[in-house]
């Protein structure tokens, strides 16, 4: 048996004390966490507006493509470019909502298939363009094809990559534009379906707003908060590890992986929108206020300070990304990649802080196994 050294004893003491002290130590009895209130506020101020914005952005891109796509261009005309950026921004701002109707019918992957481990998107889209495949030019038939042929990843390749050039024949250009229009229309259909489920009284909305023993999806009021907590936790992890870390070569692969939407230089636009969206859910959606009500006078337990720090850390990361969002090849340049690396630290802090706050304040079971077991 290994004997305990003084150092180990001290460490054990700290751990034991940490484990045994009640997690809520305030002298003032905290008010109950308002799970139902948070669910309603997030729904009305964040989720529904987010999907409405996504739906409108996809429809706007469809209109822009109808008008401008087939004009001769070496790269997409500015109106198309602006509409694509608007759509990417709208998706990023709601992408972290990884539960509910967006998980039906593989909608998440049909909107953005990433990471694409086997490079399916590049291969399949290139083949569809080369062969001028008719099925991808109709939104209804496209919806039944491979997820790699649909969504923002395919749109990135169609508009900004894979053989596009000034020397394309009119037929090639017409096919490419028809494919882009079908992608936009399909995205609009997907976004509208998700929006409808969150908006109509008998849709997913009714489960979300009636969490409790009588509901079949959320059997406890706290389960809606748990869904939000997981969405924020996984969203922050995705931005840091998958979107930034992997593209910087700091991920588990230890080599640079393709960045998301890199053909059109939209990687950081999406990442910035991801952070804007999570910040909006936390602040505008009411998570911050639910954790630390604005009229809470006593902050002896530090809950209020930590809750502010979560927002501050997310803003810091967002500002780092925003500072280099227009730089070409941002993961290659030393200056911009340094800023992107530095964005990872506040993201890690924010994630750990909000995890602790929600565990304590909302009494959520966010344990290592209980929140993500197998």
């Amino acid at each position, binding site marked *: 048996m290994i004997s305990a050294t003084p150092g180990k004893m001290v460490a054990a003491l700290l751990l*034991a004390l940490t*484990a*045994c002290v009640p997690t809520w130590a305030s002298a003032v009895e905290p008010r109950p966490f308002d799970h139902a209130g948070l669910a309603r506020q997030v729904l009305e101020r964040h989720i529904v507006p987010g999907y409405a914005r996504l739906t409108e952005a996809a429809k706007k891109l469809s209109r822009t493509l109808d008008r401008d796509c087939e004009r001769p261009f070496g790269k997409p005309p500015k109106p198309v470019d602006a509409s694509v950026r608007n759509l990417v921004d709208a998706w990023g701002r709601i992408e972290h909502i990884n539960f509910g109707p967006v998980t039906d019918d593989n909608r998440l*992957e049909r909107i953005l298939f990433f990471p694409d481990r086997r490079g399916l998107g590049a291969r399949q889209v290139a083949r569809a363009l080369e062969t001028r495949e008719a099925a991808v030019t109709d939104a209804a038939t496209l919806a039944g094809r491979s*997820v790699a042929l649909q969504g923002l990843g395919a749109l990135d390749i169609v508009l900004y990559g894979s053989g596009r050039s000034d020397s394309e024949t009119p037929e090639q250009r017409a096919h490419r534009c028809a494919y882009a229009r079908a992608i936009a229309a399909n995205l609009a259909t997907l976004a509208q379906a998700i929006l409808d489920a969150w908006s109509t009284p008998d849709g997913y909305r009714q489960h979300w707003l009636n969490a409790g023993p009588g509901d079949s*999806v959320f059997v406890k009021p706290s389960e809606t908060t748990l869904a939000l907590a997981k969405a924020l936790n996984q969203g922050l992890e995705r931005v840091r590890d998958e979107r930034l870390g992997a593209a910087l070569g700091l991920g588990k692969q230890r080599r640079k992986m393709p960045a998301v939407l890199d053909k059109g230089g939209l990687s950081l636009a999406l990442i910035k929108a991801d952070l804007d969206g999570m910040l909006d859910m936390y602040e505008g959606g009411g998570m911050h206020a639910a954790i630390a009500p604005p009229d809470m006078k006593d902050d002896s337990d530090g809950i209020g300070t930590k809750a502010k720090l979560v927002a501050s850390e997310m803003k810091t990361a967002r500002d780092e990304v925003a500072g280099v969002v227009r730089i070409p090849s941002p993961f290659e340049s030393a200056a911009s990649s340094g800023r992107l690396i530095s964005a990872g630290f506040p993201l890690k802090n924010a994630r750990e802080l909000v995890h602790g706050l929600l565990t304590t304040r909302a009494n959520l079971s966010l344990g290592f*196994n*209980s929140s993500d*077991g197998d």
Partner: protein
Amino acid sequence: MAISRRQLLLGCCGSLLAAGVPVQAVPLAALYAAARRGQDGAYSAAIFTADGQDVRAIALPERGHDITVCPVTKRCVVFARRPGNFAIAFSAERDEAPQAFTTPPDRHFYGHGIFSRDGRLLYATENDFEAARGVIGIYNVAAKFERIGEFASHGLGPHDLAFLRGEPVLVVANGGLREHPDFGGGRRVLNPGAIDTCIAYVDVNTGDLLERHVLGKPGVLSLRHLDVGTDDTVVVGAQIEGTADHDAALVFMHRRQHALSAVMLPAELKGRLAGYVSSVAVDGSGEVAAVTSSRGSLTAIIEIGSGRLVRTLSCNDVSGVSATRVPRTFLTTSGEGAVLPVCVDEAPAQAVTTSWLWDNHTTIVA
């Protein structure tokens, strides 16, 4: 105030401590193994003593799941959790280098495996995700764990598996989940509400299906973890996927040639299991089984012969549970660092709190 080492080591299991129940020292002179995460977020697997001291630890590239132990050499193999595709063999001998191996690109592990009785082969539950079928991969231990073949698990989403005690027959818990690495990181259930779970008995010499038992129509229940008791009684733990139905039975017993039978637990206990059994272990005598629920922070001990609930213990995020050398005694581990012996017949034992977030399963090595 002076604090003794014994006091220091009283861990996270607040319900035991708060009740003022005197703790019982349990001599568990054995080695255990489990995957885990450190405070720095790094994943590792370790062989450790019952008081939480590492004997050997190896780094893992990603999160691990279960560890299986060779009955001959006591060498361990830790598996990636789904949809990971790595496994690493290691032992308590520090001078023996770990040996990593992987599934083929079109397969991934489900986190569980088991050695043949002679230690020559390793069987692992795997996903043939393009064909949406479960398989049991066969690895040749002597050839650096070269994959030499596979046979059907006779179900979808095979998870835990075990040998019957006296026959070359594997019993496999086919969880019934359809998953694909391209969707939801490989962890999204693609057939919600239509989970076709079963337990299958498979002849390892031929791959033939000997028996297959289902729970009625496909639904929300997934049979995931199991262990084998005396007379080859199989104890199975289930999880509810998606729509919660906390009244559903979650623990089942099975003997060949019979139907699956639900263990009738008190109504309040069903709720405390929170729709989720994390792990199942049968004790050294083969008479009692322990099931844990990380979501319910609960360990429940059940007498296999009668299906009677013997006792329950609370511990935050408890999940790993293993038989020990002592009959009617288990070692449990938690995601909050606790290493806690659980005796069926004695007062609650003392918990050790470590700095590790112990993962889903714990197993006895020697």
